[in-house]
């Protein structure tokens, strides 16, 4: 009895403290200047078109290029990790450990600035090239592990049945095992896509031009030119418009997968 009273009193105390803090902030904050700094409707309106046609478009281009490269290269790495040929396994394991173990920012700098120096000015071609390649190189390391897990989740009997029908290992992988593996890993693949969308913000360190800048760089440039933080909020909203539908989709797919669709 006494214990329950004590728990109730503690809870009331927490409520009271929360209300006090929120109330204090609400009263003391300068809402007018906050709104002006973060939610200036004029700046919103002025940038609305550019943020969609330039910044959001470039974020999507970097994401799709990086993801496609990551999927293809990641599939190759996953197959190498599962190979019976030891050097392939070593190579894939080492690659994955390296690129999951160092920051993406560093990989971007090495591919964007380090390679041209090392190769006497030869660089990854295309305005999106260096950034997209760096994103893909790192995404491949993560996707390889996801794809490998998917392939290992397909029952062994599937490979055996395919082989006993006379299919080669490669054909059995391509037509029987991998299609099933990708169904299993749709939720984690969606999550990796969301992570990649956000990681494109780091590409800005490679000094993108006004036409190739993505959301974060766009926001930074405009925030400093207008002395206002509204561009940051605008960029954040666009990111959310891209990522939230994907995370919701991933959650739905995961739930459906758990129910079992066999």
């Amino acid at each position, binding site marked *: 009895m006494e214990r329950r009273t004590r728990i109730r009193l503690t809870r009331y105390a927490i409520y009271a403290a929360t209300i006090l803090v929120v109330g204090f902030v609400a009263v003391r904050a300068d809402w007018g200047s906050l709104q002006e700094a973060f939610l200036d409707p004029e700046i919103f309106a002025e940038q609305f078109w550019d943020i969609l046609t330039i910044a959001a478009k470039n974020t999507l281009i970097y994401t799709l290029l990086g993801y496609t490269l990551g999927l293809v290269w990641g599939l190759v790495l996953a197959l190498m990790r599962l190979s019976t040929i030891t050097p392939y396994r070593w190579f894939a394991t080492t690659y994955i450990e390296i690129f999951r173990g160092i920051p993406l920012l560093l990989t971007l700098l090495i591919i964007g600035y380090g390679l041209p120096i090392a190769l006497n000015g030869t660089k990854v071609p295309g305005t999106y090239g260096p950034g997209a390649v760096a994103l893909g190189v790192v995404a491949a390391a993560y996707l390889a592990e996801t794809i490998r897990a998917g392939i290992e989740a397909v029952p062994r009997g599937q490979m055996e049945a395919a082989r006993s029908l006379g*299919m080669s290992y490669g054909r059995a992988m391509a037509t029987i095992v991998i299609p099933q593996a990708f169904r299993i890993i749709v939720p984690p693949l969606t999550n990796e896509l969301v992570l990649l969308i956000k990681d494109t913000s780091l590409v800005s360190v490679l000094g993108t031009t006004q036409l190739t800048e993505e959301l974060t760089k766009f926001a930074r440039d405009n925030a400093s030119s207008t002395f206002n933080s509204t561009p940051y909020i605008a960029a954040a909203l666009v990111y959310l418009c891209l990522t939230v539908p994907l995370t919701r989709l991933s959650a739905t797919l995961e739930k459906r997968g758990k129910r079992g669709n066999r």
Partner: protein
Amino acid sequence: MTGASGPPPSPAALPPAIDIRDLHKYFGDLQVLKGIDFEVALREVVCVIGPSGSGKSTLLRCVNRLEEPTSGQILIEGEDICAPHVDLDRIRTRIGMVFQQFNLFPHLNVLGNLTIAQRKVLGRSKPAAQAKAREVLAKVGLLDKIDEYPGRLSGGQQQRVAIARALAMDPDMMLFDEATSALDPELVGEVLAVMRSLAEEGMTMMVVTHEMGFARKVADRVVFMDGGVVVEEGAPAALLDEPTHERTRRFLRMVHER
């Protein structure tokens, strides 16, 4: 059913369908097969029985090299399948295999399951592969399920589709690895019926099974394995009713008591 082998020119000269010589198989330090000599003649139906862990499934899986033999020889229609440059994929198309867990491809419907290997391995045209699929599905009595996905079929139906999938390749012989062990009791009969009609058509069959009734009625020969060796073999009635070895007697007593 048209066999792929055609009429033999001189039956006496034909090698056995399956000829296993002094086969040994280790899993790590564990010796599972301890020198098996074993033959299945053309058009013969051989049932392999024995307690679990006796090595009978491993023996069957060695026949198409799903398991790699440690030593010994396996000849399929006279061809050594462990020879260095043998085209294993080509030989496997002549050996149909049916698994305990069916192993249908869940991402393909029944027609897809039956045509994919015909198309990609045998290089048959789409109409030819589909006609073949219909023919073998009719044989197992499931032509009406041609568009279904495996997940929507009962266990017995799935296993019959799996048999049809193997038959669609026009194999010279069929291997059955405890094909009815994963089925609910009331579904066992429909699968055994399909296997029996295959045997009656003259298919060469090697059947690992716990169904003593099937072995008695359908097999030409029954082989009893225990502890990685063939303990004894003979005509079904002789082996099942008057086994000469104590181990065979003990096993059959256990089976009959159930």
